[in-house]
């Protein structure tokens, strides 16, 4: 079965890189993958969407993802302006980077997902990277909540993407997020 993941971020937060690293991680496990951005007019801070598809067989479909299995929100402020659950499949999951509670987040979602996953990726990124760039830490939460890719594969894919110390730090951020992620069955 193909799994379709949609990332919501803001320009500069690395949503596109997150989609690519997730694909690379799944690829390392022998899956077929596809990762791509929806390119608007790129500017820092503007809402950005990126997509990842993962399947056991080659992926032919070339459209954007309209009915995702998983939605990943890198920036909590997007919950106020973007309908992140648009098209979310029945039984689908939402993963949010936030310091808010389950109730506070649910209140902002237009559609109630089957699973809600919360992680304070910004704090983790600030502590480990010294920057509020959450694209690698949020992938720890994706690994934990979905099981579609192992955390070890995410770490490896991160180190392939960023070399040296930067790779080590980002992999650490993903691992830290993996440990701290909380999954709620709704």
């Amino acid at each position, binding site marked *: 079965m193909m799994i379709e993941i949609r990332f919501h971020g803001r320009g500069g937060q690395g949503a596109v890189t997150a989609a690519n690293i997730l694909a690379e991680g799944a690829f390392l496990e022998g899956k077929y993958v596809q990762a791509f951005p929806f390119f608007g007019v790129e500017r820092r801070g503007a809402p950005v969407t990126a997509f990842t598809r993962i399947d056991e067989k080659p*992926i032919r479909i*070339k*459209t954007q993802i309209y009915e995702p299995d998983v939605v990943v929100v890198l920036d909590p402020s997007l919950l106020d302006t973007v309908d992140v659950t648009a098209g979310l499949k029945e039984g689908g999951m939402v993963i949010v980077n936030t310091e808010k509670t389950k109730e506070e987040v649910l209140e902002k979602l237009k559609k109630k997902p089957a699973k809600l996953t919360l992680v304070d990726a910004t704090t983790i990124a600030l502590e480990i990277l010294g920057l509020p760039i959450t694209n690698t830490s949020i992938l720890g939460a994706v690994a934990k909540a979905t099981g579609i890719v192992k955390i070890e594969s995410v770490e490896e894919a991160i180190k392939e993407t960023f070399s040296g110390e930067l790779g080590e730090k980002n992999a650490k951020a993903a691992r830290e997020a993996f440990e701290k992620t909380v999954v709620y069955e709704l």
Partner: protein
Amino acid sequence: MPKKVISGNYAAAYAAKHARVEVVAAYPITPQTSIIEKIAEFIANGEVENLEYVPVESEHSAMAACIGASATGARTFTATSAQGLALMHEMLHWAAGARLPVVMVNVNRAMAPPWSVWDDQTDSLAQRDTGWLQFYAENNQEVYDGVLMAFKIGEHEKVNLPVMIIESAFILSHTYDVVDMLEQEEVDEFLPPRKPLYSLTDFDNPFSIGALGTPADYYEFRYKIAKAMEEAKKIIKEVGKEFGEKFGRDYSQMIELYKTDDADIVFMGMGSLMGTVKEAVEILRSEGYKVGAAKVRWFRPFPREELYELAKSVQGIAVLDRNFSFGQEGILFNEAKGVLYNTGAKPIMKNYIVGLGGRDLTVNDVRKIANNMKKIIEKGELDKEIDWYHLKR
């Protein structure tokens, strides 16, 4: 080389590297830029030997530099998109007229105005009559394979024409996908160094190119290009077959047929949208539709014979054009219909204008088109010939 997850643009850059190109002259334009950036990176990292990168001030100059380089016998590569390709237009004629096998990747991008960076085939199709071969890639793998085959086909002594490998803006250029690349030794064996028919640096045999062609000669020059294009069909099939035998991916057909054997309705189109169409065909077949897909890989030379064979056996062809010729119709539709006029094959043909400027064609859209075609075939007449399918009403 193991499989890698790379973008269509990186697939193009790696293919150029593996083809051991000797000269690259290019000017940046979205969404092509990451091709030439990657090539510049290969050079900066010392990963390539004997590759000269010529920075230029425009696409017109880029192609001019490629023409000069290719005329010395060098294997030459460039890349562009949309307005950049349009600016090159004059030089495209020069490359083909001088019989120089330059290879260029054009990332299909909609022409402005209004400004757009998204996918649309009108930029490359508007270069239809320049004498370049044109190959439309469905996915990143085909971008990689296409560039390698382009050198072999274009440089073939019976062809000697430039080749354009075309990929979709963002849908391929910036999408990461699994690409099975070849080992350098495999490429070297498949694609030996270029053997030019002539070289400007062969000082013992001086000659001139681009000289005056009087009415007594010009006509024959044109005929030779026409003949080389016809010959190219044979070479494309030979090279495509060899590629399949060596590397397991067959390109011997200029039109790739997908589940057309017992199909009543065939969707015909080019490029990345055909990936979605094939997916849709599989889904529609499970729902009982007798549909298939015909992906036109090579638009120049146009696969007349293969189209005729297909058209004999189907009731309807839905031509999906991600392009438009103002004052006429979709360009593939126009060509396909023209080819069949003097044959006995007369399937019902309808033109769906889809995806202009990057608008998505979804599986559900293909289902709607299938339903529309079914009705037309039952009735035996077209509701309309040209359907601006996505139009907001």
